């Protein structure tokens, strides 16, 4: 039941001076949709490249289906469908040629399903890949990722730079993949509302470090935004125990808390503040607070 499709242990990765991944531990259980969120350059793609075995773990380890993707690429990659960020498809091929070409790599390629996807995505068989619009090219990449009915679907920024119609197609594909039994999806995105909709688990990555990894539901329950009213105007954000960030000006400040709401309440009362509003926080607010802390002011 609780078998992990992806298991990452103490993974660190350094590119010269930059620490791209810092001691990352991550598990993706079978059948789960995991959304990986982070800023540009946070390490999402590096993490994904380790899962695909394109980068070799120097410290720590990565197991996919219980195997090492670097030493056993056949056992791993044949069961993964992958859509990369830059959708590196050969531009000179025609769609039908590309489909035949990719078929050779995947023993489980489902020709009828591939054709069905081609029609659903409105890809003209004789069009050259390089002439396709950005959206069609993304769908072409998605077709190739899906047509061998992979057990694990890995999508790196699948919807960046795409119009809402194509984005819907991609999200729909994720949902269909997961509702077919036992299939697992790992996708990275900086569109947090997408992650909130589609993913069951969320992992937030910041400067190579995993700052949060849990069920979306649990994360949303643990965080709340509270608006405080202080007796006098404050020039600086208040320092309160249990607050991830505080934004505001003058007498009213809105703080995001994590878990320990009681201790936050106590701290606020001790500073003479009154809690005037309490609300649930959205995943986006949580992400911004986690990443920026109290740095930014509104």
């Amino acid at each position, binding site marked *: 039941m609780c078998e992990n499709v992806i298991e990452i242990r103490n993974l660190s990765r350094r590119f010269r001076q930059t620490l791209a991944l810092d001691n990352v531990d991550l598990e993706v259980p079978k059948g789960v949709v995991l959304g990986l969120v982070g800023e540009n350059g946070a390490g999402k793609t590096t993490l994904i490249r380790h899962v695909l075995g394109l980068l070799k773990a120097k410290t720590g380890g990565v197991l996919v289906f219980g195997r090492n993707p670097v030493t056993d690429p056949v056992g791993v990659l044949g069961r993964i469908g992958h859509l990369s960020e830059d959708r590196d498809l050969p531009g000179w091929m025609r769609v039908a040629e590309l489909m035949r070409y990719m078929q050779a790599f995947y023993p489980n390629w489902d020709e009828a399903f591939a054709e069905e996807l081609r029609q659903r995505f409105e890809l003209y068989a004789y069009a050259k890949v390089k002439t396709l619009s950005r959206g069609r090219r993304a769908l072409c990449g998605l077709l190739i990722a899906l047509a061998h009915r992979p057990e694990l679907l890995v999508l790196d920024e699948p919807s960046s730079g795409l119009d809402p119609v194509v984005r*819907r197609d991609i999200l729909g594909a994720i949902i269909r993949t997961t509702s077919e039994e036992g299939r697992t999806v790992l996708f990275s995105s900086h569109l947090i509302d997408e992650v909130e*909709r589609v993913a069951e688990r969320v992992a937030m990555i910041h400067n190579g470090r995993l700052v949060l990894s849990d069920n979306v539901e649990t994360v949303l329950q643990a965080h709340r935004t509270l608006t405080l009213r202080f007796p006098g105007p404050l020039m600086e954000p208040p320092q309160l125990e249990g607050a991830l960030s505080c934004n505001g000006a003058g007498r009213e400040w809105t703080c995001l808390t994590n878990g320990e709401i009681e201790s936050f309440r106590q701290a606020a009362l001790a500073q003479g503040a009154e809690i005037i509003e309490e609300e649930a926080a959205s*995943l986006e607010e949580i992400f911004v607070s986690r990443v920026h802390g109290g740095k930014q002011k509104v």
Partner: protein
Amino acid sequence: MQIRISPTDGIPIYRQIVNQVKYLVASGRLVAEEQLPPVRKLAEQLLVNPNTVARAYRELETAGVLSTRRGSGVFVSDNGSPLARGEQRKILNDRIDALLTDAQQMNVDTDEVIEHVRRRSRHLKRSE
């Protein structure tokens, strides 16, 4: 069935589905014995995780709004009316609470609010 998911307002998505289905039943847009779309279909339509929809359906079933018939799907329960009334009251309560909170912040007392409500009601009737 018209359900809108807004991921930005902080309410968990399964709860948004639960609330809106209850609202549709209470307002009579979903009637007893009417069939709801299967989990997968609704998940694809709303673009949310199927488990989220399944959870909402489970909750609605526990609340007695929906009932599952093995092999044929999910239906609106036929003991709809008393529950619908309870739901109607709940929907109104939420609105009233919001109104009273606003009034309190503006230092308007409850009697004055009630007087306001009466006046608006007369106004609405006149303009009909």
